């Protein structure tokens, strides 16, 4: 039995190694890029849209339809996580005081640093999202950093504050849905304003923040969606701590 398994493994490894070697042998040298599409984008994106980050111009303008698909994948994945974890709700509960007590076990300095970093991270999120079309960053990066801010609230020993916020209002879901819908609406805006789905329908501008047509709007929509989605996942995970031994 073990022998048969080993034979299968050896055949698999040899085939994989051979395939990798064969595939890698025909590649260009390290750092030598030859595909045409990337060169065209690198040359034309900046003059074409007045926005300086050609990565974001590609993701949110030339290839906005792909981004829409990715966004909906994230949306569905988060809904799946929420549904899966919510099934446990109300089965057995732990005292909130108990969890708060656990939170306070973190050292004083950890909690102070955690809480002190929340504000700067939120500001950084806004900066990254709004300047996405000019400097490295964009909606996705901003949304992920916002999740970092939420994680620091928990590191700071205030995860219960998050849960109360989450339960008493639906701003996280609102943000997620509004972001997803907003990005899709930009596509329809292109359909109405310029004749094709996700055609850039806003004037490009010349320099500064208001360039790139609808790219800043797309960044904000995606930032809301990703930020909301990841905050939902994180708060669901923290929420699990309140369900003591759910069996």
């Amino acid at each position: 039995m073990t022998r048969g398994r080993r034979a299968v493994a050896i055949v698999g490894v040899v085939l994989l190694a051979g395939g990798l070697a064969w595939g890698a042998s025909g590649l260009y040298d390290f750092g030598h890029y030859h595909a045409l599409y990337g060169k065209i984008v690198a040359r034309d994106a900046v003059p074409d849209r007045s926005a300086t980050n050609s990565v974001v111009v590609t993701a949110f303008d030339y290839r906005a339809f792909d981004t829409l698909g990715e966004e909906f994948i994230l949306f569905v994945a988060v809904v799946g996580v929420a549904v899966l974890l919510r099934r446990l709700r109300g089965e057995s509960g732990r005292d909130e005081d108990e969890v708060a007590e656990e939170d306070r076990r973190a050292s004083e300095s950890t909690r102070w640093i955690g809480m002190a970093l929340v504000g700067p991270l939120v500001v950084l999120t806004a900066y990254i999202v709004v300047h996405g079309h000019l400097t490295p960053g964009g909606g996705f990066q901003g949304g992920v950093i916002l999740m970092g801010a939420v994680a620091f609230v928990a590191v700071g020993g205030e995860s219960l504050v998050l849960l109360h916020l989450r339960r008493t209002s639906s701003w996280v879901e609102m943000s997620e849905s509004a972001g997803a819908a907003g990005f899709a609406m930009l596509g329809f805006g292109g359909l109405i304003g310029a004749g094709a789905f996700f055609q850039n329908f806003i004037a490009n501008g010349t320099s500064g923040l208001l360039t790139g047509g609808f790219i800043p709007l797309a960044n904000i929509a995606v930032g809301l969606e990703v930020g909301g989605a990841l905050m939902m996942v994180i708060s669901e995970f923290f929420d699990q701590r309140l369900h003591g031994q759910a069996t």
Partner: protein
Amino acid sequence: MNGLLALLLTLVAVVGTLAVAVREPVRQTIAVGILGLLLSMLFFALQAPDVALSEIVVGSLAIPLMLLLAIAKIREQQKPAEGEPGDAHPGEAEK
């Protein structure tokens, strides 16, 4: 390929192997976090700051955080099972 890239690629290979070789879940999580940090430095050195920004938060914060929370949850559920198997009120056993 310059020295910085060679160093980062080697470090990624070493830490990536470590993350697989370490068998204790919490330590493995830390190794994965360090791997995320190294990967983001590698992306930055390869002039892909957009990807590096995503990787630094997802790889070194989001994934370790979720793994740690999941590990904590699993251990919490295992605790009463080891102490008193067949306890009708596992929530009470903790107090």
